[in-house]
C-alpha cells in the first residue's frame, strides 16, 4: 500500500543535504509551507540554493534562513533593498540571481516538464539580457532560458491523501503545483489529511506521482 504520510516534520526533511537547491513556493505568506521551512531551519542543512519568489520581509522564516547564513544563493524575482536579503547581498554575503517572475515560473515549469531550454521575449531588451544568448524569432528578440530544477521542493497543501494527491485553496496554489513537479524530493505539508478518493479525480491539483512525502500539520 502506497502511503506517503510521515509522522513529523523532521521525518519529512530527513536527508536534505548541504548544498541542496530548495524550491520554496509562496506569494507573501500565502502558499508558503511555513512548518517545513521552520523544520529546515532546525534540520541544519547549509550552503543551500533557495528558489523563492522574493527575498522575504524581515522577520519572516525566509529572512531567518538567510540571516543564519544557511543560503549560498537566492534565485528570486525581487529583493527589497531595505530587507535582510538586500543587506546580505550588499554586504557580499549572499549571491542573488533576480529573474522576472514569469520567467521564474516558466523555468520551474520547464524543469518539471522536461523542456531543456526555451526562448522568451521577457527581458530581452533589458540589462538582464547583457551577455546572454538573444535570438530573433518572428521579428522579436528573445532570451534563451534554462530549467530551474530543485533537489527538494517544500509544498503547502490544503488537502492530501495517502498517494500524495493535493489540493490548494484560492491563491495558495501559486508556485506549489509547478514546484512539486520540478524537484527530486517533493515534501508537502497539508492542513487536512483525507482518505484516498476523497478528492474527486477531476479536482486533484497536484497528482501524487509528483509527491514523495506528506506531513499533516493541522490548522
Amino acid at each position: 500500500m502506497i502511503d506517503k504520510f510521515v509522522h513529523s516534520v523532521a521525518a519529512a526533511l530527513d536527508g536534505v543535504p548541504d548544498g541542496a537547491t530548495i524550491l520554496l513556493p509562496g506569494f507573501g505568506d500565502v502558499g508558503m509551507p511555513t512548518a517545513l521551512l521552520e523544520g529546515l531551519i532546525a534540520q541544519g542543512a547549509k550552503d543551500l540554493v533557495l528558489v523563492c519568489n522574493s527575498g522575504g520581509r524581515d522577520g519572516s522564516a525566509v529572512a531567518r534562513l538567510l540571516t543564519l547564513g544557511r543560503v549560498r544563493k537566492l534565485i528570486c524575482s525581487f529583493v527589497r533593498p531595505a530587507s535582510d536579503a538586500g543587506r546580505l547581498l550588499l554586504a557580499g554575503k549572499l549571491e542573488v540571481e533576480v529573474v522576472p517572475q514569469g520567467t521564474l515560473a516558466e523555468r520551474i515549469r520547464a524543469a518539471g516538464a522536461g523542456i531543456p531550454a526555451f526562448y522568451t521575449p521577457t527581458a530581452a531588451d533589458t540589462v538582464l539580457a547583457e551577455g546572454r544568448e538573444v535570438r530573433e524569432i518572428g521579428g522579436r528578440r528573445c532570451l534563451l532560458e534554462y530549467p530551474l530544477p530543485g533537489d527538494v521542493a517544500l509544498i503547502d497543501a490544503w488537502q492530501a491523501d495517502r498517494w500524495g494527491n493535493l489540493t490548494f485553496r484560492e491563491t495558495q496554489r501559486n508556485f506549489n503545483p509547478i514546484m512539486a513537479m520540478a524537484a527530486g524530493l517533493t515534501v508537502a505539508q497539508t492542513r487536512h489529511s483525507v482518505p484516498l478518493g476523497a478528492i474527486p479525480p477531476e479536482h486533484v491539483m497536484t497528482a501524487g506521482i509528483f509527491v514523495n512525502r506528506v506531513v499533516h500539520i493541522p490548522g
Partner: protein
Amino acid sequence: MSASFTPLDRDGMAAWAAADIPEGWVVNLGIGIPTEVANFIPPEREVIIHSENGVIGAGPAPAPDAINPFLVNAGTQPITLRTGGAYVHHADSFAIARGGHLDLTILGAFEVSETGDLANWARAAHEPVKQIGGAMDLAIGAQRLWVIMEHTTKEGAPRLHRRCTYPLTAKGAVKRVYTNLAVLDVTPDGFLVRDIVPGLSFEDLQARTEAPLRR
C-alpha cells in the same frame, strides 16, 4: 495662466483610466495607482481583473471582518473573487500575461519614452538589489500597455522622454499614458495628447515634457 489648473490626484488619474476600459476586457493592474483603477469601474460593467499570483476575476477588498488569508492579489493585499472568477497556478498565470491573453495591462512607471519604452523597475542600470517582479512579463505580453504616473518628478523634472534615462522594463510596449496632467497616446510619430486637465494649455504641458508633443 498656468496657475489656473488643478493636477489630478491619484483617484483622479485612476478614474480617468477606468472610464476608458470597456466591458469584457481582461485587465492586469500593477501595484500602486493602477490597482486603484478597479475602484472606479462600476460593478455592473464586467471587467475581468487578472492578478499574476493566479487570480482571474479579482473583486474589491473585503470587509475587515471578512478577510480570507488565502486570497490576496499581486500586492499581497486581501481581495475578494468575483462570481465567475477562477484560480490558476503561477506558470499558467504568466502564460496568460506572456501569451497575449490580457486586453490591457496598466503599470506605474518612472519614465516612458516617445517610442513606448517603459522604465519602472530601477533608477540605475546595475543596481545590485533588483526589484523586478512580474513587470517585464506583463509589459511584453499584453495586447496594450497603459501607464499611470505623475507627469513630472517631485522636483519637477519631466518623465516623458525622447529616450528613457533609467534601465528599461520593456521596449516599445507602452500605448498610452495617464498622468496627473494629461492623457497621451504613444504613436509612430511620438506622443499625441488626447486629453488635458482643464486650465492647462498645450504649451504649458509641453514645457513639463522632455519629448515633443503633438495634438
